[in-house]
């Protein structure tokens, strides 16, 4: 970026014709990283158990092998901070980042402003997989809920790819195949729940379907982080290729992009990341749909800047939404997906409203 663009913030040119309104300061990513660190640090100190800020940090410092031993904090409180709050907060950050990045990539790749990480049917497939394990005991105990969810997600993504390929493989076919798979797997999930589950199981399943970070453990955090890192690297490597899709696939091809290969790679990477995240936290809606639009309005459409900032803002957003979800009705917990959707639906309407004037 040249210095001339450093402060490209003018709202209107002298002629009164709107020009690009962009904030492109170099400090934006740094501010995002700082905001994420502060958010995680604050979120772990919030919770129903009355643990002082100093105690929370002495527990974390002790586990990181720094500072004093946690001798003065009881094992119960130690467990609450280290085994419940911290992994939960970190998983919220990983899920928020991953879903926002997937959403941004899919919106550009499929040229559809309403695409989100679940457009490929991954979330409904995951739900079906989870329900089969929980309600019908598929896998005979060898398969965990998240294992079943992951398998379900992979199956539904494979179905979407197969379907869209046999329907001609154009982008709108991918979206249609995704919608079809979503409907199919939602119906299967409802069918299984309605015919086989008792009230208690239904409640548990429903909670999972709406998205919850309540079951987060360290293995979820490590798997999620590893897959997020790989996926983010792949997507950033394709940042300029994604820019080339602005005028459609043919235009991208004449700019030197291998359209079919790029699409396959990016669809698989985003589906894999979504599957991993959905398997550990359920289908948390709207982060992947709304965040990319908000960030794009700030940074402009260049993916080299858009994707990292989507990751950071998605992480910060979900950390706070989850904190809200677990504290607002204390000691009851609201599924995090419910809170994201309550914020997400008005934003969704706003997106529709904004795209309306271009047609």
């Amino acid at each position, binding site marked *: *970026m*040249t210095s001339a663009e450093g402060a*490209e913030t*003018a709202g209107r*040119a002298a002629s009164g*014709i*709107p*020009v*690009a309104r962009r904030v492109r300061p170099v400090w934006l990513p740094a501010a995002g990283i700082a905001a994420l660190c502060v958010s995680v640090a604050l979120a772990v100190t919030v919770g129903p158990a009355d643990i002082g800020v100093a105690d929370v940090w002495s527990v974390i410092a002790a586990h990181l092998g720094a500072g004093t031993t946690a001798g003065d904090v009881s094992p119960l409180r130690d467990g609450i901070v280290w085994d419940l709050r911290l992994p939960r907060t970190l998983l919220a950050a990983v899920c928020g980042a991953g879903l926002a990045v997937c959403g941004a990539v899919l919106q*550009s790749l499929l*040229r559809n*402003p309403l695409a989100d990480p679940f457009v490929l049917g991954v979330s409904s497939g995951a739900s079906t997989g989870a329900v089969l394990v929980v309600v019908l005991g598929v896998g005979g105990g060898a398969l965990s809920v998240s294992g079943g969810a992951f398998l379900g997600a992979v199956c539904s993504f494979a179905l979407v790819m197969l379907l869209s390929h046999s329907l001609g493989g154009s982008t709108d076919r991918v979206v249609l195949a995704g919608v079809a798979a979503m409907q199919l797997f939602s119906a299967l999930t409802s069918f299984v729940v309605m015919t086989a589950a008792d009230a208690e199981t239904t409640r548990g399943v429903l909670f999972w379907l709406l998205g919850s970070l309540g079951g987060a453990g360290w293995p979820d955090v490590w798997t999620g982080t590893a897959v997020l890192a790989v996926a983010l690297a792949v997507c*950033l*490597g*394709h*940042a*300029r*290729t994604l*820019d*080339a899709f*602005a*005028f*459609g696939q*043919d*235009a991208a*091809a*004449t*700019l*030197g*992009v*291998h359209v079919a290969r790029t699409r396959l790679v990016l669809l698989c990477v985003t589906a894999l990341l979504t599957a991993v995240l959905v398997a550990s936290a359920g289908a948390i809606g709207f982060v992947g749909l709304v965040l990319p639009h908000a960030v*794009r*309005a700030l940074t*402009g*459409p*260049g993916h080299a800047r858009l994707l990292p900032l989507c990751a950071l803002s998605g992480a910060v957003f979900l950390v706070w939404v989850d904190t809200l979800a677990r504290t607002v009705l204390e000691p009851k917990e609201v599924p995090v997906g419910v809170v994201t959707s309550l914020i997400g639906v008005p934003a969704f309407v706003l997106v529709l409203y904004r*795209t309306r004037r*271009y047609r």
Partner: protein
Amino acid sequence: MTLSAERVSRAAGGRLILDGVDLSPRPGATTGLLGPNGSGKSTLLRLLAGVLAPASGVVTLDGRPLDRMGRRDVARRVAVVEQQADTQVELTARDVVRLGRIPHRRSWAPASAADEEAVTDALRRTRLTAQADRLWHTLSGGERQRVQIARALAQQPRELLLDEPTNHLDLRHQLDVLALVAALPVTSVVALHDLNLAAMYCDHLVVLSEGRVVARGEPAEVLTADLVAEVYRVHAEVTRTGPDDRPHVRFLATLPDRADLGPDQTGLGPDETGLS
């Protein structure tokens, strides 16, 4: 040696769209591609751009078959301006022109001084410097087409392919766009509907009909009343009254479709029939 199509064919939905077409545009000149709707102009341009592969025959760039070259290598040489381009992304004119640098940049490399220079130069040559920071959806049709041409120029191509670039433009902008293309020091191939614009701005014309080349040569040789009658089924008068004594076509009436006629009738008098 430059871009060249040799006996290329392509079918779609069981119908032959192109049937053994040869095309070797003269380096540095502007070649006009004429023909009615469905005659294969767009398909031929897509084959030349390497976006589609020919079913038979070969498209070569400096003697190398396009399908053996990397897509990026092709995009650094051959730029394409489509009939109509649109986006939902909030891009400025300069953002769009910057897209032309994609084939020249490595995945992780930031924009170099050469990239920015190419973008600025392309904006200047298309007289868009003042509009560079305007958003795409606020630009007029003529400005959008010029932005697309600027984007193509930022690719620094030696071959430029344009598919009916004057569609949807008013008269003044049609002339502007074609004058700009004709003055560029690149080999260009332009698909056109307007015969008079083709006569004014092209050095060489190729006429397609039903997937075959039916005429080629300088505008004065190609644009005759017989050709217009045969290819377009329109009765016309051609005079040498265009600029620089170029041909000018005046349309008089439509002729009956060939399908409506008997085998030996063309709707013309005996001395007006056919093309060789």
